[in-house]
């Protein structure tokens, strides 16, 4: 066991690089703001106020953090095993479609049963989409980056069809959306007057489960996969089924994120429910160093960025796409950190200034 001061010191040391990374990304985007004739101080002040300025705003930030942390945990499981699942958006969408289909078609069931059933359906929907890419990779050696990405586009069109065809609201005057969920199926609101719903607690529980997961035998096998699929094979792990299993878990979590978003916020399906969570989840997972606590913290940070970013667009007219710029920069700075490590190793006369993951012990 670590003593509490040891724990704090360790935490501080482990989050310092993330803080430096974020600061650099914000500095670079401040430069962009200056170049395009905006006032960076005003912009970031508005952003901060937009995310934290009132109870309502903090609640909104937590609302956005919910799907992000669940999805990013899924992303981290795939990334740890060197499987590059970047199809979070599609898996999120399939989860939402499956859950809604169950909720609308089995409304005769008691709600106590229907709500958990929709949760399971969401997991399965995501898992189906990710599992497909897993099978393609395991059986056909098809690059999962491209297949998961392509499945994202397919999911967009599938959702577009679902809300205009089979699940369209019959009383919605042809508007492309499904009927609203039954009142009893909506996730309960935790703080009246805000949109903060039960999902955040489910999200935190899933993050905690993430800790247990990494201590399980399966978690250990996945980390072995991360050492390289050859290493795992020599250790007696069957690669193909493990690849599919990892993709199923990773994508299933994205499906669950879709469930929290629909059952906690929108209460119906419509176009654009993913709102770019997929790419955000990748950034969150990487900035969080692929560990559950880190993911919890960085999901909160990026949620603040999107909530504050839309306030910034409304109040001072800075385009919301600045948030994507910051995301991209954060990843670039995260992966460039090894430059510093390499330089330090070389200065210290280390014999192996070679490949990045050796000198830093990280898996990407």
């Amino acid at each position, binding site marked *: 066991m670590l003593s509490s001061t040891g724990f704090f010191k360790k935490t501080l040391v482990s989050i310092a690089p993330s803080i430096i990374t974020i600061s650099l990304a914000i500095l670079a985007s401040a430069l962009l703001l200056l170049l395009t004739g905006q006032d960076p101080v005003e912009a970031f002040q508005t952003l901060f106020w937009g995310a934290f300025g009132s109870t309502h705003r903090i609640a909104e930030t937590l609302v956005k953090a919910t799907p992000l942390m669940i999805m990013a945990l899924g992303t981290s499981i795939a990334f740890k095993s060197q499987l590059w699942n970047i199809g979070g958006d599609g898996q999120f969408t399939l989860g939402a479609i499956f859950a809604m289909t169950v909720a609308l078609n089995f409304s005769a069931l008691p709600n106590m049963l229907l709500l958990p059933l929709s949760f399971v359906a969401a997991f399965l929907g995501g898992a189906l989409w990710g599992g497909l890419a897993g099978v*393609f990779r395991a059986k*056909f050696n098809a690059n999962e980056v491209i297949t998961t990405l392509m499945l994202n586009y397919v999911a967009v069109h599938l959702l577009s069809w679902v809300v205009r065809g089979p699940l369209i609201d019959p009383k919605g005057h042809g508007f492309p959306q499904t009927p609203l969920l039954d009142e009893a199926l909506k996730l309960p609101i935790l703080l009246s007057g805000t949109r903060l719903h039960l999902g955040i607690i489910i999200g935190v529980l899933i993050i905690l489960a993430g800790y247990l997961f990494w201590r399980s035998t399966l978690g250990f096998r996945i980390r072995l996969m991360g050492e390289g699929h050859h290493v795992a094979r020599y250790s007696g792990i069957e690669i193909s089924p493990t690849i599919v299993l990892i993709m199923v878990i990773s994508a299933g979590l994205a499906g669950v994120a879709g469930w929290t978003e629909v059952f906690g916020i929108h209460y119906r399906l419509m176009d654009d429910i993913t709102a770019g969570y997929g790419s955000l989840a990748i950034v969150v997972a990487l900035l969080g160093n692929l560990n559950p606590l880190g993911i919890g913290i960085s999901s909160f940070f990026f949620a603040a960025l999107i909530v504050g970013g839309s306030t910034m667009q409304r109040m001072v007219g800075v385009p919301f796409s*600045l948030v994507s*710029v910051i995301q991209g920069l954060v*990843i*670039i700075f995260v992966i460039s950190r090894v430059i510093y490590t390499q330089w330090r190793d070389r200065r210290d006369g280390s014999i192996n200034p070679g490949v990045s993951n050796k000198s830093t012990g990280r898996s*990407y």
Partner: protein
Amino acid sequence: MTEVLTQGFLISLLAGAIRTSVPILLTALGDIFTQRAGILNLGLEGIMLMGALGGFVGAYFTGSLWLGVLLAMLIGVLFSLIMAFLSVTVKANQVIAGTALTILGTGLSAYLYRSIFGVQKLPPQIEAFPAIKIPLLGDLPFWGPVLFEHNILVYLTLVLVFVTYFVMEKTTFGLSVRAVGEHPRAADAKGINVQLVRYICVMIGGALAGLGGAFLSIGFMNTFLDQMVAGRGFIAVAVVIFARWNPYRALGAALLFGGASALQLRLQAMGVPVPHQFLLAMPYILTILVLLSVSKKAQFPAAYTVPYSRAER
């Protein structure tokens, strides 16, 4: 369904297939260099978006489409330098570096477009490259309108297919590129600067992806739209794998995707009894199927996605 078989339909389908395939093909040609040198650049999607913006902005403000093309290629090169730096110098994971670049390009192109043009009721437009009817050949029945009534960039792309083949297979530079992708250590021992060759190949990929993006905004359409690339950068990567790094096969594969998109549009217009969303999803499903069919036996460059370092054994 008899109208499917009319000559007019076929002409418009085939000519449309050629036009739609050009942005994918241009990006794929550049990516042949990049992939052959051992680098998987998933940032092409973002680079294409920056190129689409650069081409449009250049053409809009200078009034010259060619300066737009130049700006797009320049921006493509600059943007790809980030990828080259991350994958060659930092030796970072290429999937993550590429994803970062795509997110950055998506955000930055939208941000800059808003900053430059503000929010307008009607999107600003330019005169796109006009179609040029080639004398004599353009008068051929059927093949004339299919092959010889395109804008200059379409013809240029076709020329680039041959140039790419020639450079790759018949020049020492092409040989170096292949050596670097197959066996960087041996290439290094022969005195080839592995890192420099990889930088150059990523930059060629960036220039052509920038041009591919510009084709969308100033050749195919006449305006810039956020997300107008719509996955074509990723499809180009798949095309290169499908074509097994050969420019002629890349031409065929790009035409296949162009054909799927063009067919999809025309089937929609005809009102076939299939939900149009399924037609829209066709090119993406096709990409997956194509990857499934070739990935098992494709001989990837031996040093694919592996950074090179002299100190490593």
